[in-house]
C-alpha cells in the first residue's frame, strides 16, 4: 500500500473534524445579530481608523533572511543524510565529506554577519523610541 494514501487520508480527516465541529456548532448556536456587537474590539473604545494601513512588516527579517536560510537547510538535508553512510563506506575522506559543507555554511554565516552589522536582524524601533533612546545615551 502506498504510504501517501494514509497521509492523504489524515489530511482528509484533518479537514473533516473542523468542518464537523462547525456543522455541530451551526445547529446549536443562537444568532442574534446586532450592529454594535459587530464592532472590532479596541479595549472597549469605539474603534478609530481602519486596520488596512501602511505598516512596517520588518521586511528583511520576515521575508528575505528566512528565504535564504530556509533554502540553505533544504540544501543541507541531503548532505546530512548521506554524511555518515559515506564516511562508513570508506570511499571518501573526512575532509572531502565535511569541507564543502563547512564552506557552504561559512558563506551563509558571512551573509548573516553582514545582515547583523546592518541592523537587519533587529526589530525596527519606532522613531519615538529611537529618540528617547538617544536621549538616554547622551552623556
Amino acid at each position, binding site marked *: 500500500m502506498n504510504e501517501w494514501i494514509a497521509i492523504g487520508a489524515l489530511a482528509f480527516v484533518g479537514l473533516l473534524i473542523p468542518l464537523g465541529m462547525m456543522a455541530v456548532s451551526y445547529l446549536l*448556536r443562537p444568532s442574534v445579530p446586532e450592529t454594535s456587537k459587530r464592532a*472590532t474590539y479596541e479595549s472597549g473604545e469605539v474603534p478609530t481608523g481602519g486596520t488596512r494601513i501602511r505598516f512596517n512588516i520588518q521586511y528583511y527579517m*520576515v521575508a528575505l533572511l528566512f528565504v535564504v536560510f530556509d533554502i540553505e537547510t533544504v540544501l543541507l538535508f541531503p548532505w546530512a543524510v548521506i554524511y555518515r553512510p559515506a564516511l562508513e563506506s570508506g570511499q571518501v575522506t573526512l575532509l572531502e565529506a565535511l569541507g564543502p559543507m563547512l564552506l557552504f555554511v561559512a558563506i551563509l554565516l558571512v551573509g548573516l554577519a553582514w545582515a547583523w552589522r546592518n541592523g537587519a536582524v533587529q526589530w525596527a524601533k519606532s522613531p519615538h523610541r529611537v529618540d528617547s533612546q538617544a536621549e538616554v545615551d547622551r552623556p
Partner: protein
Amino acid sequence: MSTLEAAVLQADGDTYLLPERIADLTGLGEFGMGGELLAAFIAAFIVGNLMLAMTGVAGPWAKRKITAAFTDRIAVNRVGPFGLLIIVADAVRLLAKENIIPEDVDRPAYDLAPIVVAGSAMLGFAVIPMGSGVQLADPEVGLVYVFAVSGIASVGLVMAGYASSNKYSLLGGLRAVAQNIAYEIPLVVTGMSVVVFAGTLQLSEIVAIQAEPLIELGGFAIPAWYAFVNPFAFVLFLAANFAEIGRNPFDTPEAPTEIVAGYQTEYSSVYFVLIYLGEFLHIFLGGAIIATIFLGGPAGPGPAELGIVWFLVKIWAVFLLTQWLRSALPRVRIDQLIEIGWKGMLVLSFANLVLTAILVGVIVA
C-alpha cells in the same frame, strides 16, 4: 497479506503500519484499491481522534488543573470526578456560543484560518511512530515532512491576523510569523544534527537506532537516546520548539497584557475552539517530534506492546513542561525574542551542527 507475510515484513525491519494492520484484521485488503482507501481512512480517523481526545483532556481540564497546582489553587472539581466532566460541559458551552463576525472582516480568509490552523496541526501526526504499531505512514522523508507541515500553521495565523480587521490581531499575526520564521531555522538545523548521527530521515529508523545501549552502568543499560548523546542539541531543540509553538516564555504573539489575544482576538464560538485546538495540537506535535528524535519514541521498560503508553507519557511530559514554564517564567519582549532567535539560537544551532558533524566524522573515520 497473510499474518506470516506480515511477520516476515516486520522481521525485515520494514514497519507494519496501522492501515495495513487494519486492512488485514478486517479483510479490507481483499477489496483492492477501495478497501485500501477505506482502511487508510479508518486508521487516519483513529489517529486523528486520539489526538483530538488528548487536546480535549489538555485544554479544558489539564491546563486548569496544572496551573492551579502551581498557584496553590484547586481549579475545576465540581463536575464529575476530579472535575473531568468539565471537558464535556466546556465543549457544549463553546460550540453553543453565538458566532460573532466583526463588520470589516476579509471573509473567505477569516473563515478559512481556523480550519488551516487546526487541520495542518493534525497532518504532522501521520508519520510519527507512536509505538504498539500505531503509525499511519513511514515515508523515507519523514522528518522533513513533519517540519514542512508544522510550518503551514504560520499561514493560518497570518490569515487570522490580517482578516480580522483588528489592530491587535494584525500585530499578533505579524509577531507570530516573525517568531515562527526566526525559530524555524534553529529548529530544523538542530533536527539536522540528529540526522547526521542517524544517517536517515525515516522516523522509524531514527527510533530503532536509539534503542541501542549507549553505556552500561552497573547492569543498567542507558539507551542511546539523542537527548543523552547530544544534550546540547536537545536543549536547543526544546527552546526552539517552545518558540515555534508560541508557548512561554515565547508567547508574544498572543501576549494578553500587550495585545489582548493577538490573532485570535476577534474569534468566538467554534472558530475560537478550532484555533485553540490547533494550538494544543501543535504543543502535542512538538512533544511528539521531541519524543521521537530525542527521547527514543515509544521506547521504555516492559514489553513492546506498552510502546504507546510510554510515547504518551513522553509527550505529556513535554506538555507539563510547557505549563510549568507558563507558571514560572516571564515573557520576553518581541525585540528580545527576535534577537535571541537570529543572533543567539541561529548561531548556536549552526555551531551545534558543525561540531556534531566533526564529532561523527572523527568517531566513524
